[in-house]
């Protein structure tokens, strides 16, 4: 029989420590929508999404009510649109019509985001891939809910430097086209190395071609719960620290597993994976950086931060894996700057730089996330930042990502307001030495050797 303390502990996590299920993401394959006629293609896409996802939001709300756990977002991910639109789209503007269709379908079913306006170009771009990539800035500026991602490299294929160069320009253009709103277009655009097929988190969610027709993936949250648990063992040794994180991660993930199974049953769609990520929000107390401070670092970014993050990430996985029957997606601690009060404080206090963030991404998911930089940063420098991050993923056989926002008209010292879950961010300094001659070389960086590890 349940104990009153257990019941109160769970409710305290929900009410005071921001425990929530971050997202139920319905992955939908659009492969059977493909048609060489653009109008027909758009019609097929709209119909499939609005039919399959008709009850997604209401089911999510029912589960929220019955279990008393907030489910912050209901989302959809679709097959990368570069593949779906390849037969029908001859120009970037043709692709933009699909973005609008996705946006309309998202609004019709009432979800928060739709991801999959994507291209997978880790080794090379088809004409359709390139057209889609060139359409991204416009697509993001004329839609509200569409998220876009591009996979630019992998451990097996190396890095597509032509695509990396192009994406530097596209990030800049997306910033320019949404400059009236603090370049928010870039907050909906992420580039990857080793992108997972089943990630439920935005902006990088897409439904990989290896997936079933439709699938339910769930992302959990809960940095506030971990921080609170660590407060109770203040000053204890690493063994106690690790055990506490593991146990807490187990509890958080079990809630995600319950919600995922329940949603899957009610919607009649198979359960895919739980993403074990610790995802912060701008809410006070829901911060990864606060966990570091509780561990004993004065600020996130202080020496020791990478070690603390490596440990945190590993313990979350160890606890979470046992709590869920299938784990996938990104699974690790997120370190977005704008979505985490403690990270913002660390930047403002001068403790955290882009270079330190880059080092931290070597040991966690996902990458340089929600970082505002000066609007006059050259596109080649953005490509350089992307290439560095992709190289970390390629060599270390892990997913890495870049979601960076060159805020047009703003400079170091300014603050940018994105609103909602995206939060606000101080504009961070970027190394001003150029890399144009390196980025402007054509071709690819070959796949790394998988032996002689050092």
């Amino acid at each position, binding site marked *: *029989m*349940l*104990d*009153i303390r*257990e*019941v*109160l*502990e*769970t*409710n305290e996590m929900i009410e005071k420590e921001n425990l929530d299920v971050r997202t139920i993401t319905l992955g939908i394959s659009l492969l059977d929508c493909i048609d060489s006629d653009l109008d027909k293609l758009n019609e097929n896409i709209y119909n499939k999404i609005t039919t399959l996802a008709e009850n997604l939001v209401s089911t999510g709300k029912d589960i929220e*009510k*019955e*279990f*008393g*756990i907030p489910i912050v977002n209901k989302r959809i991910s679709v097959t990368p649109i570069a593949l779906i639109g390849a037969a029908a789209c001859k120009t970037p503007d043709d692709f933009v019509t699909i973005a609008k269709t996705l946006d309309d379908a998202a609004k019709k079913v009432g979800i928060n985001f739709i991801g999959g306006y994507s291209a997978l170009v880790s080794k090379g771009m088809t004409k359709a891939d390139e057209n889609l990539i060139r359409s991204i800035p416009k697509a993001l500026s004329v839609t509200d809910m569409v998220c876009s991602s591009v996979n630019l490299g992998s451990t097996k294929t190396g890095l597509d430097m032509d695509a990396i160069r192009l994406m530097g320009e596209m990030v800049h253009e997306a910033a320019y086209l949404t400059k009236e709103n603090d370049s928010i277009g870039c907050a909906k655009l992420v580039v990857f190395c080793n992108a997972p097929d089943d990630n439920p988190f935005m902006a990088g969610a897409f439904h990989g071609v290896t997936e079933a027709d439709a699938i339910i993936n769930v992302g959990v949250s809960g940095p506030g719960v971990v921080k609170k648990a660590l407060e109770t063992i203040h000053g204890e040794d690493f063994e106690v620290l690790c055990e506490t994180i593991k146990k807490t991660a187990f*509890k958080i993930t*079990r*809630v995600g*597993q*319950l919600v995922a199974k329940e949603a899957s049953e009610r919607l009649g769609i198979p359960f895919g994976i739980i993403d074990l990520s610790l995802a912060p929000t701008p809410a006070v107390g829901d911060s990864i950086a606060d966990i570091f401070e509780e561990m004993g670092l004065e600020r996130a970014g202080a020496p020791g931060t990478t070690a603390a993050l490596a440990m945190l990430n590993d313990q979350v996985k160890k606890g979470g894996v046992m709590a869920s029957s299938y784990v996938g997606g990104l699974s690790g601690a997120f370190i977005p700057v704008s979505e985490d009060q403690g990270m913002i404080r660390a930047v403002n206090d001068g403790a955290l730089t882009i270079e330190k963030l880059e080092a931290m991404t070597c040991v966690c998911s996902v990458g340089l996330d929600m970082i505002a930089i000066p609007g006059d940063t050259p596109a080649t420098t953005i490509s350089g930042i992307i290439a560095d991050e992709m190289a970390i993923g390629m060599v270390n056989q892990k997913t890495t990502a870049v979601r960076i926002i060159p805020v047009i008209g703003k400079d170091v010292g300014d603050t940018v307001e994105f609103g909602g879950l995206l939060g606000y961010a101080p504009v961070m300094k970027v190394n001003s030495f150029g890399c144009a001659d390196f980025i402007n070389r054509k071709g690819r960086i070959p796949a790394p050797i998988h032996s002689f590890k050092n």
Partner: protein
Amino acid sequence: MKKTIITVVGKDSVGIIAKVCTYLAENQVNILDISQTITGGYFNMMMITDISGSSKKFDELSDELDGIGEEIGVVIKLQREEIFVKMHRI
């Protein structure tokens, strides 16, 4: 059986349990277990209940209990048992 957990949290006062139990009796909700503690002047009560005999839906029961809570100045929540069992039992 449809096991649910009712929690009542708030400032202690006379008649909280009576009020909640009367409502449950009127709506054929069976109480399987009750426990309570008072910490820092705050009243915490948990009931394990079975709502399968009630003619009202989960939603209605939940909203009406919410209303009673507001009336007597406490927070009453109705939740399905699984969230607690999954979290605290392997």
